[in-house]
């Protein structure tokens, strides 16, 4: 449980970081909070030749509030978001998702951008990014580009990021006051990665659901929106009948993986139970 040899390059600026990545090529990796990468290196599941440490780049940490959206810097810690003052339903969503990431020591070091780049299909931030159709801002020597969440998560632990690219920020749309949101997940112990995670954001006016967003983690090789559930919710009165129908449809539509923590069938059961709970509990 000691990492294979590697070079260590602390970056003093974004420019320096992307220059280093460009020079080092395939064998290099960005080091952010280290809460996923370092365990993988200790198990020798990851053997980068070099680490480009972006931990010192203060400009990448923090939330910029704009009128229609917010921009979350890649180095924003999980704990920053658990305690964020972002108002409205988006703030609720960030706080309750943040509180469910790992344990306190992990939340103090782990970063939002690291989670998104790591692309664990059960990660809260990946589920949230897919739920809200986030936009990723990515920089390399070649310049800056943006990638939509739907195109970003390609498969398990894999994203659209090129080896020389740095994720600098993620843009999340603000949710207006009509939105009700909830994060519900199941893990065998407090702080473990969810076996299944469910996030919902539904606009409800006069008791009727408008825009309905349902995203599931832990049921596929990436976070997935449940189109089946969303279409059964939109336009329906926000109530038990629609919730049950959506939950059952979401469960029927997934084909989850199996592992020692739960069979595919069990995960499907969890989708139905957790989605129903999320819909019942959603709040501004």
């Amino acid at each position, binding site marked *: *449980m*000691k990492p*294979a*040899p590697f070079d260590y390059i602390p970056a003093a600026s974004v420019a320096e970081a992307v220059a280093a990545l460009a020079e080092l090529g395939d064998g290099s990796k960005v080091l952010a909070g280290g809460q996923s990468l370092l365990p993988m290196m200790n*198990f*020798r599941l990851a053997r980068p030749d070099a680490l480009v440490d972006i931990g010192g780049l203060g400009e990448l940490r923090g939330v910029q509030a704009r009128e229609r959206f917010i921009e979350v810097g890649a180095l924003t810690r999980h704990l920053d978001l658990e305690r964020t003052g972002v108002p409205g339903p988006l703030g609720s969503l960030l706080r309750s998702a943040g509180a469910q990431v790992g344990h306190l020591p992990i939340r103090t070091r782990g970063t939002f951008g690291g989670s998104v780049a790591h692309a664990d299909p059960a990660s809260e931030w990946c589920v949230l990014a897919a739920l809200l159709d986030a936009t990723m801002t990515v920089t390399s020597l070649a310049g800056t580009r943006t990638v939509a969440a739907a195109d970003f998560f390609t498969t398990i632990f894999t994203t659209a990021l090129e080896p020389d690219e740095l994720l600098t920020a993620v843009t999340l749309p603000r949710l207006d006051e009509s939105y009700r949101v909830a994060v519900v997940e*199941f893990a*065998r*112990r*407090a*702080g*473990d*990665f969810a076996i299944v995670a469910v996030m919902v954001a539904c606009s409800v006016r006069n008791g009727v659901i408008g825009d309905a967003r349902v995203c599931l983690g832990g049921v596929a090789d990436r976070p997935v929106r449940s189109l089946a559930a969303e279409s059964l919710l939109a336009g329906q009165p926000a109530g038990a009948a629609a919730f049950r129908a959506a939950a059952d449809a979401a469960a029927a539509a997934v084909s989850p993986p199996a592992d*020692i*923590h*739960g*069979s595919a069938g*069990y995960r499907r*059961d*969890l989708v139905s*139970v*957790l989605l129903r*709970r999320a819909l019942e509990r959603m709040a501004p």
Partner: protein
Amino acid sequence: MIGKPLRRVEDLPLLLGTGRFAADISLPGQAHLRVVRSPVPHGMLRGVDGRKALSMPGVIGVWSAADLDLGPIGFRMVAFPGMLPYRQPVLAAERVRYVGEPVAIVLADDPYRAEDAADLVELDIESLPPVLDQLQEPAQFDDQNDTEALLHEDGYGDVGAAFAAAPHVVELTVTVGRHTGVPLECRGALADYRPGAGTLDFYGAAKVPHQNRLLLAGLLGLPPQLVVLREAHVGGGFGVRGEVYPEDVLVCWASRLLGRPVKWIEDRNEHLLAANHSRDQVHRIRAAVLADGYITAIDDEFWLDQGAYVRTHAAAVPTLTASMLPGPYQIPAYRVRGHVRLTNKTPAGTYRAPGRYEGTFARERLIDAVASSLGKPAMEIRLSNFISPDQMPYARPMSALGTDLEYDSGDYALLVGKAQARFGLAELEHGLAARRALGEAVGMGCAFFVEKSGLGPYEAVRISVDQSGHIDIITGAGSMGQGFETVITQICAQELGVRPETIRVLHGQTDQIEHAMGAFASRLTVMAGSATLIAAQALREKALAAAARMLEASPRDLELSDGAVRVAGDPDTGISLAQISEALRPDQAARWGLEPSLTADGWHTTDHMCYPYGLHIAVVRVDAGTGQVIAERLLVAYDVGRAVNPMLVEGQIVGGAAQGLGGALLEEFRYDDAGHPQCTTFMDYLLPTRAEMPPVDVLITEDAPSPRNPLGVKGAGEGGTTAMGAAIAAAIDAALGVPLGVKELPVHPEAALRLAKAARRESTSEPGGA
């Protein structure tokens, strides 16, 4: 002093960060050892190629079985000759038998380089199909032997007749999964062979240093007295830590080969692959029952997954399983057949409450089954089958760990009554019923058990007082964090009338005392505690005799208190232990006509164990949507004979209960169909954390002191664990309203959900149901 919750005397260095654990110890010039382990569960080892590794910087050498001239690792406990072929070689020679089996070693000047180089050692292994199920018919182990290493048969009475005559026969099959003790400190060893002197010092010993010295010296062909084992601070033992494993032998062998110190520190990944697994038993058990619930016979057959080899514990677990299974009940006739079967998994050994966690689960589930088939409360069945106090001492015609199984004392019904009153069980059950009526799946489950403790045959203690009055107590027994030093200090302080701060307990160093058994089987307070009392009494006599000469008084008129001897009723005559020690200096003692040195030895020997007992109660809630089982409260009533330090007894019980809960709900070593271990990190081997652990209420009673030792004490190390699995299982049944729903531990949420669904189907299909 005895009976007081004295704060732990051993904590200060730990709190100051000056503790020294195995990894903290280093010697100049040490080399670092890394073990190359088999990546496959079963196969023929065709070759080990270390050439690439040898070319790496800092690498000293690569060695495999062909370079070694060492026999397999021997047995320390109850052994049968038939088990000898199944001992583990220090390095695999022709065959590898589990993922993680040591195949080669790499030595380097730095632990990182050793690990890098070990990665490059190439193993040529021809895979063979693995054996992964102890219920499968025995397969071939080697040319002469099959995979059933032992069929252990025991029992007494006419079981056949009892079953033939019984109006009711209740039968069930239950399983306890594969889990083990996981100390926070992984293993570690530093061996220092001195060429010329021919001595070998071994740091990082634990639990049983004297016994391990014999094993290691025997393997290496050294006289035991030239091998010194040294115990440092130990971050948890639980039965797992401190046995002789291949790595312990390898550091010694390598140090002798290189003539320099060799260090090996285990990482967590290795620990979960290499240190003993435990449990993993399937029991098919039946009871012959009379109409009133009296059990006339139990017939049990069990299958134990021993893993790839039989390690130092030999037959300890199966024989303890067999002999302790009848527990607190009379059971006039009993038959047990235990199959110890080898598979291609990490070898198994003892873990806190070995054999009893499993046997208690089987027996208490059987009691619940009897109760449900007769429509009676389970506690009523228990009460009507208990061995009664007037039957004590109660001899069951069997043996346990080589001793006659004779329960020394106990009043089981009294403990049940006290627990019911103290914990308010009737009100508790009432409250749970009210919550169930509102739709919550909550329930309470109970399980009763008898533990064993204080295994002999001996333990020795030497007490000496220096010229400042400071007292050293020397014992070879080990301390793994359980509070051993505190307990020994209390016993000595009480007998000598001295302050605990003047006492130091030295333990686990084989060059300080010739003989010791060690720290296992909840034996130390009984054995080393009694030896301490006996040594302190002898020292007291010696001090009084000396003071009598010095004061020209009769020893009968003297008393020892506050570290000084006085003439009774004359506070001004005080002569301190320091002064007595000074007077007994070798050049002074003759003046008084006394043996020099204020020192005394004490031995406690016994042929029998003592048998504490207890009641575990669990209150759980099941999330009927996810199947998650949430333990809301755990209650433990335990009769320990006499509690030298009730705070430490409680600490042992709470920690033990957490491990019992872990085995019931979370912890399990799983293997895939190809025999690859699935739980080799803390992401997949789930230990309970603070969040999963509810408060534990502990009731300690002292109603049945042991007549078998001068203190009346019984052991407290394992009684927090023993019946927790059975109690939690019963609580889940109660929560879901499914009698005997839980037959398998750990209870995965998926399994609980299946039960919950079955219960819902049952209740909705009931005619006239709501």
